[in-house]
């Protein structure tokens, strides 16, 4: 936005048109306070019908006084569906594309609905997607993993493993976040998208199950003194390749994973095998993993020279960017939502760091003038999403809600001004700036950036 920055008081907005009319918000709020859900419902109905006061003089909530069908009848039997689905009332909670972001749906992305998620685990069907040349549902009995060296001396014996064999090996299950390097990339220059789904939704967190790559390299007799890099390659048409530093492999953190949230990976996420590289951007978590090669230099693949490189103001590109630095975002309340009432709200959000654990999260409701520590919800795990919350009594005036995370390396999440002062605004990747949400007097929340 080229607009001259204006004080927020001059930018207060009228009540949103739509499903709760401005005039009805106060009444809805009052009825909510009284626990009169029937009146709330009728207020919505009235709003839809074009307004008009609904007179109610009842003994209480009809949903209490009149037994519903589900209280008076016989329910559904078991196994109406061998694999269950969310409630029909949850149909709005979906992965979504950002219109116009890509020209094809095979080289594209869908965003996870962070505004609707609780805790730290992403339901598997809502895990964000990023495909470079379309996704496949591969027959696991035909899938192979090859481990080799870029020369004969880097690995004693190049080996091939079937899925049966990989799944016989001792496994570990760990919770980790996965974030695309381009998450929040549309917002480097200015506000471009309305909700946290689009600003931060290339982010998910799951329990991954698999075998440490270190074990496979041991079995093959890899020379990791000279072989300081690992090439990971996918089996799909894109043949995705990324260089993984051996330092991360040696820590035992890098996995060949087949499990996700207690079941096998979903096809969109790499079934039957993907690399898990905790703390590192998602493009390195190669899907449909077919090959690992030990090498003595980085590989300069397409997605580490032409893409996933960060353009700096001096015209140089930063290559091999991998670590996702400490970042956080408030998901409730967040852009595109409408608060129904003044009074108590629990500000809640997610924090994470590719360098380790989240140590602290601070929250501001006045656009960063004053901050207070948020509560961190257990568990707080290594290279994993952490849920935070803070109490807030909203007084009905416009407010700017922000969060700021600090990790156990001492790194502090920067403001846009601090980030741009070093990196400019054309990096595309690795935007971990503090997010601002403007809550206007109407209760509507908007994505804003501060001068």
């Amino acid at each position: 936005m080229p607009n001259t920055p204006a004080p927020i008081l001059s930018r207060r907005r009228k009540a949103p048109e739509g499903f709760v009319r401005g005039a009805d918000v106060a009444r809805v709020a009052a009825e909510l306070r009284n626990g009169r859900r029937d009146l709330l419902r009728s207020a919505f109905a009235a709003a839809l019908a074009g307004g008009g006061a609904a007179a109610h003089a009842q003994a209480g909530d009809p949903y209490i006084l009149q037994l519903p069908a589900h209280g008076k009848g016989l329910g559904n039997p078991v196994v109406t569906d061998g694999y269950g689905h969310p409630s029909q009332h949850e149909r709005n909670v979906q992965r979504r594309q950002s219109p116009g972001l890509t020209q094809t749906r095979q080289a594209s992305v869908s965003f996870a609905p962070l505004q609707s998620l609780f805790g730290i685990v992403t339901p598997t069907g809502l895990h964000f997607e990023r495909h470079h040349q379309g996704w496949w549902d591969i027959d696991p009995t035909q899938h192979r993993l090859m481990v080799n060296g870029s020369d004969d001396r880097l690995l004693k014996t190049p080996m091939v493993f079937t899925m049966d064999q990989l799944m016989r090996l001792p496994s570990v299950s760990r919770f980790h976040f996965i974030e695309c390097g381009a998450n929040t990339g549309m917002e480097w220059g200015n506000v471009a998208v309305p909700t946290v789904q689009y600003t931060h939704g290339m982010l998910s967190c799951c329990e991954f199950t698999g075998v440490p790559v270190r074990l496979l390299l041991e079995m093959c007799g890899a020379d990791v003194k000279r072989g300081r890099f690992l090439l990971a390659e996918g089996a799909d048409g894109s043949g995705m390749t990324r260089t993984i530093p051996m330092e991360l492999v040696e820590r035992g953190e890098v996995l060949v994973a087949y499990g996700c949230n207690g079941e096998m990976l979903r096809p969109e996420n790499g079934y039957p095998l993907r690399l898990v590289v905790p703390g590192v951007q998602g493009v390195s978590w190669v899907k449909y993993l077919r090959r690992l090669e030990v090498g003595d230099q980085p590989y300069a693949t397409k997605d580490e020279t032409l893409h996933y490189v960060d353009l700096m103001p001096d015209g140089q590109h930063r290559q091999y960017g991998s670590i996702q630095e400490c970042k956080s975002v408030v998901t409730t309340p967040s852009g595109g939502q409408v608060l129904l009432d003044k009074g108590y709200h629990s500000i809640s959000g997610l924090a994470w760091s590719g360098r380790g654990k989240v140590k602290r999260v601070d929250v501001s409701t006045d656009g960063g003038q004053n901050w207070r520590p948020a509560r961190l919800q257990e568990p707080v795990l290594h290279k994993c999403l952490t849920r935070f919350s803070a109490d807030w009594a909203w007084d009905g005036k416009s407010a700017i809600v922000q969060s700021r995370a600090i990790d156990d390396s001492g790194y502090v999440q920067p403001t846009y001004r601090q980030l741009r002062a070093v990196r400019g605004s054309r990096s595309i990747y690795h935007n971990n700036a503090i997010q601002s949400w403007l809550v206007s007097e109407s209760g509507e929340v908007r994505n804003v950036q501060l001068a």
Partner: protein
Amino acid sequence: MCSWRSALAATLLGGASAIAAAQGASYAGIGRAATPAELAAWDTDVRADFKGLPKGSGSVAQGQQVWESQCASCHGTFGESNQVFQPIVGGTSEADVKSGHSARLTDRSYPGRTTLMKLPTVSTLWDYVQRAMPWNAPKSLSPDQVYAVVAYMLNLGGVVPDDFVLSEATMARAQARLPNRNGMTTAHALWPGARVAMRADVQAAPCMQRCASEPRIASTIPDHARDAHGNLAEQNRLVGAQRGADTSRAAAGAAPATESNDARAPWALAGKHGCTACHGIEGPLVGPGFRDVGRKHAARTDAVAYLNDKIRAGGAGTWGNVPMPPQSLPESDALALARWIAQGAVQ
């Protein structure tokens, strides 16, 4: 099994350079040695030092033929197209060839960043084309074709002359003239593979009180674009502390959702069956847009049956020389798509 060998190697090397495989014996029966043929089939990556390059060669002229039949439909005749993917060619100069820095990367008035403006290593282009191109038939080009088409792209960008023949022997000559060959740095804290650990480049302090002056909003989404991502009321849960803002322009209750869902169903089918890899709604991608197809056959009384046959049997020549392969999809889906295309591919 290799465990005894690696254990032996560890002993011979004093355990210094091989990971100890003490417990390897307990994984008996898991994995086997790869055969030379298997390694040759899969180990095709090409590094910046040209390790992995196969023997072969291709001229700029040969590359033009490959380009025009297999690449131009997405990337444009001169690699300049921005229609499907980012442009490959453009934005570089002879001065860049001399300096090894793309000057336009610091020119904020220059809109795009083409492949050749960024490319630091010619091996990358070779490796990527052989593994992932063409878009709908990856790994179908021979090494000679890859050399040729890479030579053609480099020629379009003024990197190599018209009579150039690219081969494993001449790759270094092309590399020495890449416009942005000096344009990369690994001196940053996001790369754990760097030899020297770097301090984070952005340093902030966690101030708690009176940290900033009154905030001023520099950017937000303008009102006219409120609904650019659809109706946000439909993108939030229907219960809880808040609802989604209704950003639709139409008054509430105007069009029932089911109708629009029905209209979207064929488009979803087109996605499900991979049609949208090559076809958009309007205008050409790899193949013609669905509406273009509908218009072309609008006069046919048997348009639905004709398109149904075309979808299932494939064809070439109607829209150009890129063939459409036969599609295996349920007959009912093919028919639904044919009907939708014939009726104008309304979304």
